[in-house]
């Protein structure tokens, strides 16, 4: 993943930062899954043994193929003999299943799934941290975003047997690559765009072999983000079109090369099916579920746990919770820093995705309000969108919320502790307030000086760029410590 290195540290230093962050994420993941690690080969998260049993079978299937030095067949009569089943229409998780085949063969499929779940928490958090750092977030902000996403209620609830959804490592990387392509951060002209597009195609193919639905949800999120971006900076649109098309073409070629045959088998091969077997507009978030934590979350109460337990989609699909405090902070930073484009993009994406997650008609407090039509109502009858369970948009919505919080944290920290930040980060640039000639207005000026260290999303072309210097002062170190 080539691209812009974070502002304050070099490439090597950044890898070190990510390595340490990865260790912390792993520790966090082990803490969350520690009861499973007491006996990883047989312990599962309660509440959904059916899907866990199914995934163990899939992992054994993948491992058996690897043990015979071949790829898993896309049509198998291992189940439902003699007719068989199509692997691509089921959640076989071919990629993790094959990568973890040695663990499956040595310690059994449940041990592999436990390892996958732990990697899912740690990897999702680390992926978000890496992406946020790439977009200029400070380390505390990136850590906040990574924690909110990697250990989000949506991923915690998905760990109830939905291993394919819980392993949400790639969506942040896909969104990052797509946005870099859209904003011209892929260095090297059309060649750089093609390289970015190729990487995007590879990531999409990898996600395809983990969970197709999450790939679609991520694609929807990216479309929303790019739409907001272009609506906010329309003049830059035309200039980026050629590179974006180049990148998309390269991505399509890579995706077709890696996943073309499996997709052909899925949609044109034997045992193809129409639609999904689930009741339309059933698996959707309850509006009250956004603020009612389930019993699997630390902050729950007896009544909120009971509410979640009676959710019509079941606990593994109870993905909407974020909580009043987080929603309030999100609203606050969005309103306050609306002009900060990255925050705006993520905040709008979160709102739209969260709205999609509510399904076609409103479900509130367990009561169906069929007359209240929501945006997804008009999308759920289309060929592809009709195959999506809307509540699962919560996973990518939480990612957008995490990123918005991180950007808001960075922006807000300059407001909250301007003098401390200034003395710490730019002692040479910002001499004591009273005597400095360029800061007669006191606090307001000091903020301006402080924000020189922050980055803003300048209009043309879409690039992070420091705000121009306003205070002429002594030379400053190129890379101040973070």
């Amino acid at each position, binding site marked *: 993943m080539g691209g812009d290195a974070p502002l304050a540290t070099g490439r090597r230093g950044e890898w070190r930062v990510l390595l340490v962050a990865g260790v912390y994420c792993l520790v966090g993941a082990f803490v969350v899954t520690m009861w499973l690690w007491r006996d990883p080969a047989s312990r599962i998260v309660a509440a959904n043994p059916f899907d866990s*049993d199914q995934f163990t*079978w899939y992992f054994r299937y993948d491992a058996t193929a690897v043990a015979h030095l071949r790829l898993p067949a896309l049509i198998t009569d291992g189940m439902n*003999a003699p*007719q068989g*089943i199509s692997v691509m229409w089921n959640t076989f998780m071919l990629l993790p299943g094959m990568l973890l085949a040695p663990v499956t063969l040595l310690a*059994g499929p*449940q041990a592999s799934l436990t390892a996958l779940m732990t990697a899912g928490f740690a990897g999702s958090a680390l992926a978000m941290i890496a992406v946020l750092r790439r977009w200029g977030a400070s380390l505390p902000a990136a850590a906040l975003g990574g924690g909110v996403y990697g250990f989000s209620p949506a991923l915690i609830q998905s760990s109830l047997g939905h291993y394919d959804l819980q392993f949400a490592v790639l969506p942040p990387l896909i969104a990052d690559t797509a946005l870099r392509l859209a904003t011209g951060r892929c260095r090297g002209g059309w060649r750089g765009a093609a390289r970015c597009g190729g990487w995007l195609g590879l990531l999409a193919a990898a996600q395809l072999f983990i969970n197709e639905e999450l790939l679609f949800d991520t694609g929807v999120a990216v479309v929303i983000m790019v739409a907001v971006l272009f609506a906010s900076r329309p003049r830059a649109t035309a200039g980026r079109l050629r590179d974006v098309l180049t990148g998309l073409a390269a991505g399509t070629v890579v995706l077709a090369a890696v996943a073309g045959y499996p997709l052909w088998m899925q949609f044109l091969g034997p045992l193809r099916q*129409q639609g999904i077997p689930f009741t339309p507009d059933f698996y959707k978030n309850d509006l009250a579920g956004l603020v009612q934590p389930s019993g699997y979350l630390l902050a729950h109460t007896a009544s909120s746990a009971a509410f979640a337990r009676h959710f019509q989609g079941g606990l593994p699909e109870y993905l909407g919770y974020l909580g009043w405090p987080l929603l309030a902070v999100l609203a606050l930073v969005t309103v306050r820093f609306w002009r900060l484009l990255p925050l705006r993009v993520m905040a709008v994406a979160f709102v739209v995705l969260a709205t999609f997650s509510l399904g076609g008609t409103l479900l509130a407090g367990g009561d169906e309000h069929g007359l209240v039509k929501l945006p997804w109502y008009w999308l759920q009858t289309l060929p592809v969108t009709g195959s999506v369970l809307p509540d699962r948009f919560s996973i990518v919505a939480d990612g957008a919320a995490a990123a918005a919080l991180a950007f808001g944290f960075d922006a807000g920290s300059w407001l909250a502790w301007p003098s401390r930040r200034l003395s710490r980060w730019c002692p040479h640039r910002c001499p004591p307030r009273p005597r400095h000639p360029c800061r007669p207005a006191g606090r307001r000026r000091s903020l301006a000086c402080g924000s020189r260290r922050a980055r803003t999303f300048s209009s043309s072309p879409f690039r992070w760029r420091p705000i121009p210097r306003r205070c002429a002062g002594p030379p400053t170190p190129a890379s101040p410590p973070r």
Partner: protein
Amino acid sequence: MATYTAPLRWAADTGQPASMIGGYFMGPTWAGPAATDGNGLSSEAMYLNQLWAQSARVPVASVATLPPNQVYPDAAQMRAQFAGWKLSAVVADTSPRSALGRYLTGLLGPPEARAGQVLGWRLPRQ
């Protein structure tokens, strides 16, 4: 079946059998639309599941749908279904004296293999 996945866990842990009737999956029905467990199990499979559930004291409703008119497949239909499934072996997690054990013994003869509570019959290649 979606409501009873212990056989999948068994197959995952042991690697056997390599191929099974039923399972828990998404697949097309005969008409094409997707359904959990595809076309579902045949009435013969449901009958075997029902016998097993009664022997294993598992709720019948979790593994079988009873025929609405209480008409169960006879031996000829069961043998024809076995042929249609192209079975190479029948493995039953039950005792010889259970309802399922007695039924299979009557249908296939005495079990050719026994290990604890597991009975096995090898079937001629169809």
